[in-house]
């Protein structure tokens, strides 16, 4: 371990890089803005690497802690720390930012500096969410992250972007404000905003249930769980490719992560009490949303619904309360980060050439873009959970874990292996195979070096974690153990 404040660097390097990019000026200097952004994102990634190399795998608590007084009037601290659940997500965030910067390289021609800056700043804020151990600090990062995302969808988005972005913002804001009320309530009970203090605090059942529901409103919107998922397809469809990638790869994980960080350990009895409810919602997402995905005409919408369905696995894995399922859920979060990025980037590649996301406008693309088709088919396979890809590992672990809890949970969850394959492969068939559908498709050119690079990078990761998921489970193991131990102890006040 070094003495450098690694987490602070991980948060502030991208934010400062983003501000620097803003000062490169208008679109006349777009070229400079791009290179500064790329350099910034690479440096920002490099400063997060020590989180992995310096991590103590046997310790389940928070590492790399930093504690500074911030607002003493309310006992609020600038308190950072990361455990085995946060570290992989932080690495995923800083890595995805590089991908996003490269993916927007020549696609974005309008207000380039602002675009790049928004993603860099957002990256820093999201790492802040993953590493805050003070509730208000966490809340500040959580909400502040909405501002750049709001602008990204609204400025660079599609035709219906205003509706989509305002819906996204208000949905998230409404949920988060209730979470804020829960935090203030906990503050008045405990006199502190320290998350770790909340873990130890006894709470009566009705308090726990209300607190859990307030958290649920915030996190379920973000995950998103059925039935508060409706903002996601809109936001995904309208967002530029980079926006979709960040939304799917990271923003959704904020919700999942927060369940593990706040809702479950702070209200363990309520979590157990409401687990049936949570599992039901998760299974509805897995099965019903998969069926919804099957009938989509728009590729981005299809992937958006597929994301919701996959995130259903994550919440399912959380609430069956065993090691296998919880590990699986975390692996699923990381793997979904790679796969959904790759899927959205693939749609982006097609959209940049054809300016259409409608499946019906395509057909026989494989004839014209063989290299691209190879990647796309690989990612589609991963998305449908083919063994050997990272998509399989998480789902399989969650299904096995669910089987230990209840046969029917596992049965319903495993239908996704059928439906997931159905909607993904059917889309691939219609877009890539068959005769060349029209003269637009006939004019398609294969991917250039830049696109090849990012898709290849993701392909390596998808296959790598599919064959060898050890690095993730190694990181999470100790923390998951400790979390399950904590969850098994009741926090109800004795004698009540």
């Amino acid at each position, binding site marked *: 371990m070094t003495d450098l404040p690694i987490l602070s660097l991980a948060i502030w390097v991208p934010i400062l890089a983003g501000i620097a990019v803003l000062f490169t000026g208008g679109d006349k200097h777009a070229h400079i803005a791009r290179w500064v952004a790329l350099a910034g994102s690479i440096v920002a990634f490099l400063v997060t690497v020590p989180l992995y190399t310096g991590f103590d795998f046997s310790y389940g608590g928070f590492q790399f802690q930093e504690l500074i007084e911030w607002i003493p009037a309310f006992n609020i601290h600038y308190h950072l720390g990361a455990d085995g659940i946060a570290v992989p997500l932080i690495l995923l965030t800083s890595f995805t930012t590089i991908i996003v910067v490269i993916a927007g390289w020549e696609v974005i021609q309008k207000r380039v500096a602002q675009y790049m800056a928004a993603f860099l700043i957002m990256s820093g804020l999201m790492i802040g969410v993953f590493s805050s151990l003070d509730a208000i600090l966490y809340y500040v990062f959580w909400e502040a992250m909405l501002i750049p995302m709001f602008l990204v969808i609204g400025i660079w988005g599609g035709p219906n972007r205003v509706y989509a972005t*305002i819906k996204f913002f208000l949905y998230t804001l409404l949920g988060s404000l209730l979470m*804020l009320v829960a935090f203030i309530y906990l503050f008045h009970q405990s006199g502190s905003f320290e998350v770790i203090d909340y873990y130890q605090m006894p709470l009566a059942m009705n308090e726990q249930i209300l607190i859990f529901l307030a958290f649920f409103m915030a996190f379920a919107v973000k995950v998103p769980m059925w039935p508060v998922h409706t903002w996601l397809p809109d936001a995904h469809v309208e967002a530029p490719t980079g926006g979709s990638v960040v939304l799917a790869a990271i923003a959704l994980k904020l919700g999942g992560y927060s369940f593990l960080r706040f809702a479950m350990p702070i209200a363990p009895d309520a979590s157990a009490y409401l687990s049936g409810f949570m599992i039901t919602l998760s299974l509805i997402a897995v099965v019903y949303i998969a069926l919804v995905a099957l009938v989509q005409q728009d590729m981005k919408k299809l992937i958006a619904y597929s994301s919701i369905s996959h995130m259903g696995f994550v919440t399912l894995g959380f609430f069956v309360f065993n090691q296998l399922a919880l590990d699986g859920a975390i692996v699923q979060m990381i793997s979904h980060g790679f796969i959904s990025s790759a899927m959205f980037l693939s749609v982006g590649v097609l959209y940049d050439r054809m300016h259409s996301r409608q499946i019906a406008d395509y057909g026989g693309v494989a004839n014209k873009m063989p290299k691209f088709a190879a990647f796309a088919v690989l990612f589609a396979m991963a998305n449908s959970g083919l063994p050997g890809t990272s998509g399989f590992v998480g789902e399989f672990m969650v299904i096995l874990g669910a089987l230990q809890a209840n046969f029917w949970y596992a049965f319903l969850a495993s239908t996704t292996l059928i439906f997931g394959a159905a909607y993904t492969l059917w889309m691939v068939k219609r877009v890539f195979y068959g005769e060349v559908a029209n003269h637009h498709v006939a004019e398609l050119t294969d991917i250039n070096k830049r696109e090849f690079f990012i898709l290849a990078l993701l392909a390596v990761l998808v296959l790598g974690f599919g064959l060898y998921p050890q690095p993730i489970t190694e990181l999470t193991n100790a923390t998951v153990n400790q979390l399950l131990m904590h969850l098994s102890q009741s926090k109800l006040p004795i004698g009540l």
Partner: protein
Amino acid sequence: MDAIYYDLATALPEIFVLCMAMFILLLDLFLKPNNRFLIHVLAQFTLIGAAFITISTYTPSVSYAFNNMFVDDPFSDVIKVMMYLSTFTMLVYTRSYIKLRGMFRGEFYALVLFALLGMMIMVSGQHFLTLYMGLELLSLSLYALVALDRDNPRATEAAIKYFVLGALASGMLLYGMSMFYGVTGSLNISDVTQALLVGVPSHAVMVLGLVFVVAGLAFKLGAVPFQMWIPDVYHGSPTAVTIFIGTVTKLAAFAFVIRLLIQGLFVLAGDWQGMLIIMAVLSIAIGNITAIAQTNIKRMLAYSTISHIGFLLYGLMSASMNGYISSTFYIVSYTMMTLAGFGVILLLSRHGFEAENLSDLKGLNQRSPWYAFLMLIVMFSMAGVPPTLGFYAKFTVLQAALQAGFVWLVVYAVLMAAIGAFYYLRVVKLMYFDDVEDKSPIVAPFSMRLVLSINALALLVVGLMPQPLMNICAYAISRSLQ
């Protein structure tokens, strides 16, 4: 003899502002039109001088003067310094606006200073009559300021509305005060408090008086159901006056409430608490929901003010030290946000063109990314999104209300805040997502650009480091209210 010196020394800032206001009024008669700049400089000098006097004579103790009719305590000092600062900023913002509209005259500055003097007396009044005198000095100056643009029928209409309703409210306030006098035999706030503590013969009459006083105060603050004048006056007044009404006078009205309700009538807290709750709940709902329907940005900000007053009342209705501190923090934050918001509107107005429709903000990001960014900060701050100051303002009042046990009222408030976020987002949408229609360049004096930038960035900087401002508010309240 010594007593008189002591009294005069306590009221030195007021005396200084009074002398300067009269001097400016006189000087204006002898100045040629192209030397009017001097008036502006003198007015600014007055504010700096007053700030200097207030700060240099500052003591952490509470000192009374003029037979306990006037008080100088840390609370009054903090609010007064905030008033000088806001008035200073407002005068910087409005200089070119009033110049282009033929209002760049001595009267404007003299009236602003007289209004300021009235407010300073309101902040320091310790006697019902002192308070009322300050209030009337403020109100009369404001009526004249609203109507200063004589040939504008809308401004005249606004002035008449303001005058009629304002006089009514003053009447109610006086009527309530007279009942207090009838029951307690005194108009002095400390004596009234003492009498209440000992026990008054008729609680019912006190409560009846309280109803009138609260109604009068609610009118001055602009809380529902006494909010009707706010949109019309905000809309009708020249923007240079709207910014004054929307910021500095709200500080004074808040101080007025603290003096009357919190300091004078805290014994009746059980009675006024319920009234404040009703007004807070209604203000947040009506302010936020009606603002959505507005197309005029001044009207939108008027309704936004009403909802902010609702949040302010959340702190007061908690009837705890924590609540009063939170409300003080809220009103100071509100003043900073509103100043910057109107500052941008004034910036976009130019000769023969009033930027007052929401559509005038379209594509501001293409015209000037910097000012669009500043307005973005202001809007997110008003919506209460971190890391801006507005978030901490809402956070503090909500935690005070929650501590006082109003859990469901707090949940209600955050739901309304989410509704309210919509119309602030719409402004951001217009600036960033829409294409520019009006391509004319933004011209403004350097001083205005500088002060506006500092003002808006302060929302972000204080948002990241809110502790000093919180400390000041906590100190002012806890030192002054025992």
